[in-house]
């Protein structure tokens, strides 16, 4: 592993003072590559905090461009019409020249998913579509890449850690694809709600990279207007009959049916 430079000691000094994290955590961050799929309401704060915290290489994938209606929550962007992956990468570089922030201004899709995740240590799902969420999950399981998945809508959020050795996949937790999907554009979102989920995703990523996978299968749920805004839910682990990671391995027929229905093509592994 590459050691820290003098500049990096100065930059990250306050983090290395945290006992559980320390210098060893900082060196692990420096030597890690994290993929951020989606540079929107989740990806912006998540990418900024991970870039500033010192993740050595960030791959940022987003094909979309910045619209006025994004600005209230996508706090890394300042320019209407810019590609979101490029805009977020630029914002990270402005703040921390010690890390590499690599923009991929392409759609994350079945035919390039596996290639985009080459040499990656951890994947962060910051997307806004259920079809892509299942695709990211299936690729992560196939490539044995841990996945931190966050989502937000209106005044609520959810976060789970998946696909680490022995852990469940997204399909284990959520076997039923919803009939009707609800996006932030159509159903609304409060800026600080998706923001807090994106920063939590960065916090969990930092913990994962420094200390490894969680001991228990759980999901964090957030609801700003609930009397108890945060809950940590104990979840069932791997589902033996999961069509992706179950006891009999990926069920090619069922997955093919799934992809035929929701994606253009079956993922290339």
């Amino acid at each position, binding site marked *: 592993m590459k050691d820290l430079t003098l500049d990096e000691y100065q930059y990250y000094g306050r983090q290395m003072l945290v006992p559980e994290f320390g210098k060893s955590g900082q060196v692990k961050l420096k030597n890690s590559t994290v993929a951020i799929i989606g540079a929107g309401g989740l990806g912006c704060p998540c990418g900024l905090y991970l870039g500033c915290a010192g993740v050595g290489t960030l791959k940022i994938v987003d094909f979309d461009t910045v619209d006025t209606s994004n600005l209230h929550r996508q706090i890394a962007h300042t320019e209407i019409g810019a590609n979101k992956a490029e805009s977020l990468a630029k914002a990270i570089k402005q703040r921390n020249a010690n890390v590499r922030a690599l923009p991929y201004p392409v759609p994350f899709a079945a035919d390039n998913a596996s290639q985009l995740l080459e040499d990656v240590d951890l994947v962060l799902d910051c997307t806004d579509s259920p079809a892509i969420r299942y695709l990211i999950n299936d690729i992560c399981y196939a490539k044995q890449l841990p996945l931190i998945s966050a989502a937000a809508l209106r005044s609520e959020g959810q976060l789970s850690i998946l696909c680490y050795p022995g852990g469940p996949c997204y399909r284990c937790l959520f076997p039923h694809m919803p009939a009707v999907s609800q996006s932030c554009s159509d159903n609304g979102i409060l800026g600080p709600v998706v923001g807090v989920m994106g920063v939590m995703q960065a916090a969990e990523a930092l913990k994962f990279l420094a200390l490894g996978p969680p001991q228990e299968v759980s999901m964090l749920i957030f609801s700003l207007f609930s009397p108890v805004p945060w809950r*940590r839910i*104990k979840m069932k682990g791997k589902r033996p009959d999961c069509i992706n990671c179950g006891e009999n391995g990926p069920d090619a027929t069922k997955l093919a049916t799934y992809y035929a229905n929701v994606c253009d093509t079956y993922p290339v592994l």
Partner: protein
Amino acid sequence: MKVTVEVGGGLEMIFGGKRSQVVAFTGGSMQALLEYIAKEVVEDQSKLDVFILDGNVRPGILVLINDSDWELEGELEYEVQDGDHVLFTSTLHGG
């Protein structure tokens, strides 16, 4: 017995916008609690099917009993206890 029923993920819309309420339940299994909620607690009965389908919770809705997935607790057979917290919410996909 008193049971706290909390809903989220859009389900609050058929509960008159109420996210959390304490209901007086005569006791029984989750199956019985579900029937009670569907009949007595849901306010917009015309949209009951976003919550209940064929006598069970609609696929895609998470059921959490005292901060545990109900699959760990026996699902419909779980015997509801006084003071339980039951939360129904949808999987979110936005970002």
